[in-house]
């Protein structure tokens, strides 16, 4: 079975990219789809109805969606296997963009919207750093100058990242993403799959629902104002 993990900011066009991938690849692969979201998601029902593929979702609720994704990924591979799938697409709602939900033995796809501003790639460096391929959506809406500058900022963050520019509704440029999905080696040992980098996990007392203001009320990962320069320094 092949695995691809799709992540990116809300409304970047992740599901439009997934939809194009399914539309083209469904003749050659049996595809299973898992959506990880925070509070509400409808994509699993939409994609199941549109393509007749096994699809499901989990809500991360109080937990960071990328953490939730890490927790359930191994189960999801078993589920997809039971469904007879040979390609599992996992779409994460990863919200704070500090995490990078990509794993070994799976293609890491980051989706960014070209209209999100030319500095956005710099702001989501952690996610870009560990991905294999960046899909830039809504490319039809921006000027030539902004296209080029956006691309340069992505390269600045990760020079090795493959970049695909697309109008995901039309599917332009998608052939390069599909090729990357198909060329990526299948899972060889599901029990050996690892996260590519350590995310800023720190399941802290705020994560679990403590609402007091001030570090004095918390334990675990705490910060004082004076030494808060590096709140996170990831891989």
């Amino acid at each position: 079975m092949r695995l691809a993990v799709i992540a990116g900011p809300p409304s970047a066009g992740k599901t439009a990219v997934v939809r194009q991938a399914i539309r083209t690849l469904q003749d050659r692969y049996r595809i299973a789809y898992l959506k990880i979201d925070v509070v509400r998601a409808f994509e699993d029902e939409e994609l199941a109805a549109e393509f007749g593929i096994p699809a499901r979702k989990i809500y991360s609720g109080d937990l960071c969606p990328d953490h939730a994704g890490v927790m359930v990924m191994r189960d999801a591979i078993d589920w997809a296997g039971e469904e007879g799938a040979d390609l599992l697409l996992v779409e994460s709602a990863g919200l704070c963009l500090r995490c990078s939900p990509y794993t070994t033995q799976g293609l890491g796809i980051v989706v960014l919207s070209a209209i999100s501003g030319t500095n956005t790639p710099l702001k989501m460096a952690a996610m870009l750093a560990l991905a294999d391929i960046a899909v830039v959506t809504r490319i039809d809406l921006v000027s030539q100058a902004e296209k080029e500058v956006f691309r340069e900022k992505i390269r600045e963050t990760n020079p090795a990242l493959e970049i695909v520019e697309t109008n995901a509704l039309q599917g332009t440029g998608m052939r390069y993403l599909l090729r990357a999905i198909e060329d990526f080696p299948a899972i060889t040992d599901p029990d050996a799959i690892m996260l590519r980098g350590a995310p800023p996990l720190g399941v802290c007392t705020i994560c679990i629902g403590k609402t007091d203001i001030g570090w004095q009320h918390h334990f675990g990962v705490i910060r004082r104002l004076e030494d808060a320069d590096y709140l996170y320094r990831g891989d």
Partner: protein
Amino acid sequence: MNPTPIREITILPGRSRSGEAERFREITIRPGDTISIVGPTGSGKSALINDIEVFAQNDTATGRTVLVNGTSPPEEFVRDPAHKPVALITQNTRCLADMAVAEFLAMHVRSRKITDEGIIGRTIDLANEFTGEAIRPDARMTALSGGQTRSLLVADAVLIAAAPILLLDEVENAGIFKERVIEVLRAGGKAVIFVTHDPLVSLLSARRIVMRDGAVERVIEPGDREGAALSEARRLDGILRRMREEIRAGNLITGSAEA
């Protein structure tokens, strides 16, 4: 900028929406060509220029193939906007960056590693040949009118991106000087392809591609047979342009608007 000069682009036929093969053998586009794509709304005009823009390889909904100099284009032509020999400007194309015109162009010039600083001024001057409302270097990009934005994007594509092929999707609606744009592009050896509903733009183009049901129905080369229609269209366009200026200026139009 491009390592490979573009001698010609060839479009090979695909299928109509109902699955029938298109009835042309090939359409070849060379530097200096002016082509308009016409047909009813929904007939596949934008899909055709999208095929050119992505250098379709029988992998778009239309099944067309687009060749550069007779062969499949190198991947960087398709994938890297800085190497792409095609600039597409649509009605939706925007400049989102909230910065001054000169800064915006400087950003593009830097990303292209162009050292000639005069190019920014020349780009603004060229844009001002296309629009009646002068663009100032310190104006905010986001405050430009539709016509100013289109004019600037066309000038940017010509001078900074230096794209040999321009695809303009219904830009005439934005009130730019169409004739001047065509003149400049032709003089600069650019190939320009308009998706258009505008009679003057269609008549000014040397070739017309007529679309129907997602397919190219025919390609017309009018030669000089439409000379009378062109001068009529020019005259009417002149009348409308003068009326537009009068109305913009807040005047009553009581006399004839003939030149």
